[in-house]
């Protein structure tokens, strides 16, 4: 079993180096983009997209997910689903509560609110 894996590992080394290069490039890109001082919404979108791409490269190739079995995909899929639920609910709740939140650095606004 290990011989089989060693054989394919040699081919993988080339892939690792390419991924390494891509990660470095993407890191430089994401830092340069941040110097543009984009408005938060756009900045978050681009930053998240680049980060997701980098993370996917690490997961797919360094963590061997590309050649992994379905059970692992299922486990990760389930985890990501629950993770999204964990993100979504407090954010939605927070959004719904926004009108009721009194900001501590704007007490004048609080009086206007009443």
């Amino acid at each position, binding site marked *: 079993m*290990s011989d089989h*894996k*060693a054989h394919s*590992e*040699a081919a*993988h*080394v080339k892939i*690792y*180096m390419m991924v*390494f290069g891509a*990660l*470095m490039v993407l*890191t430089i890109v*994401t*830092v340069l*983009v*941040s*110097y543009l*001082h984009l408005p*938060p919404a756009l*900045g*978050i979108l681009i*930053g*998240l997209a*680049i*980060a997701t791409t*980098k*993370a996917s490269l*690490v*997961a797919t190739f*360094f*963590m061997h997910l590309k050649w992994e*079995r379905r*059970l*692992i995909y299922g*486990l*990760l899929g*389930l*985890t*990501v689903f*629950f*993770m999204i639920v*964990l*993100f979504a609910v*407090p*954010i939605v709740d*927070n*959004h719904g509560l*926004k009108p009721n*939140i009194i*900001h*501590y*650095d*704007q007490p004048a606004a609080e009086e206007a609110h009443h």
Partner: protein
Amino acid sequence: MEHAPVESTGIPNGKLGTWLFLASEVMLFATLFTSYIVLRVAAPSWPRGWDVLNVPLATLNTFILITSSVTIVMAHAKVLEKDKAGFRRYMFFTLLLSFGFLIVKSFEYASKFQHHHYPATSIFYAIYFTTTGLHGIHVIGGILFNAGLMIWGAGDGWEDPLFAGRVEYAGLYWHFVDIVWIFLFPALYLL
């Protein structure tokens, strides 16, 4: 007792166990990111990362961590090729880079403390110190495990049938730590 055939997934115990552990870690860090998002969105104002944090140092750390991910996956490749010296070399570099990450981090923290910025100073710093701190603890954990593998590999470990697998699992954990930083870096420093 001899080993009888068993009903199994075909995935070795250690690998399955490692992925399950990583799934739980995903939920752990997801909670921190959720908290960050909620608190930031609710805040009346929030500093831009580049104004208060050291982007160049963190960029350096990002390069360091990504490189260490490459060296650890190469270390595993060397184990499969039965290249003991190669394994030691790549694992050594992984550890070196990991220490480098921590050293850069400690420079960052020290500079913050010198300017009297502590977790209690503001909600921004609370998030910053707690998330990077917990990430740092995970780096330390990885260092300990990887160092243990190096020591074991220098002795009985190299011939142990479980050795190659455990190096792979150490790599999986380390890549996860890298992935967390890949998200943490833009989330805290670049936005």
